[in-house]
């Protein structure tokens, strides 16, 4: 088995953990549970992008991982801000 095959298997396994993590978003029950699940996809997505950067030899995907990390924080902040002032 080559090195890139091993990384590919790792990527596949990571993706499968994300599928399980997303089941929590389907099950809920509260909004916060769903948000946790999305947060897991955010950090898992960063890891997936870093693995894909190596696999496809596209170093720019590291920049994408950086942007995803930044914007996932913005989205999470927006999620917790909702409905705070009753509006």
């Amino acid at each position, binding site marked *: 088995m080559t090195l890139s095959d091993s990384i590919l298997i790792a990527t596949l396994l990571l993706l499968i953990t994300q599928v399980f993590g997303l089941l929590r978003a389907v099950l809920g029950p509260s909004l*916060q549970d769903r948000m*946790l*699940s999305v947060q*897991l996809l955010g*950090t898992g997505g960063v*890891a997936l992008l870093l693995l894909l950067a190596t696999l496809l030899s596209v170093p720019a995907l590291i920049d994408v991982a950086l942007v995803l990390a930044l914007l996932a924080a913005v989205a*999470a902040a927006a999620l*917790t801000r909702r409905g705070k002032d009753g509006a």
Partner: protein
Amino acid sequence: MLDLFGISLIFIGIGFYAAGSIGLLRLPDIYSRLHALTKADNLGLGILCAGLALLNGGLLYAMKLLLVWLLVLAASATTSHMIAQQALRRETN
């Protein structure tokens, strides 16, 4: 040899992600789930980044991965805390 070590680290990192996902699914309440998840975020990604840095070499590359990891660390610490606060507010209301 270095490659083997790097790959092992990547798989260990993914093991943490798996533990986080299972924790998110199996644990009974939001606070313990939050706890499981932050483990996955912080340790899993850190170990995976270390493994990737070993595989690819290059100081600039390693620094970039370190930056990504620190960002995720700082962001997830704050957002998890805010989610916990919101969950607590929901319960007390």
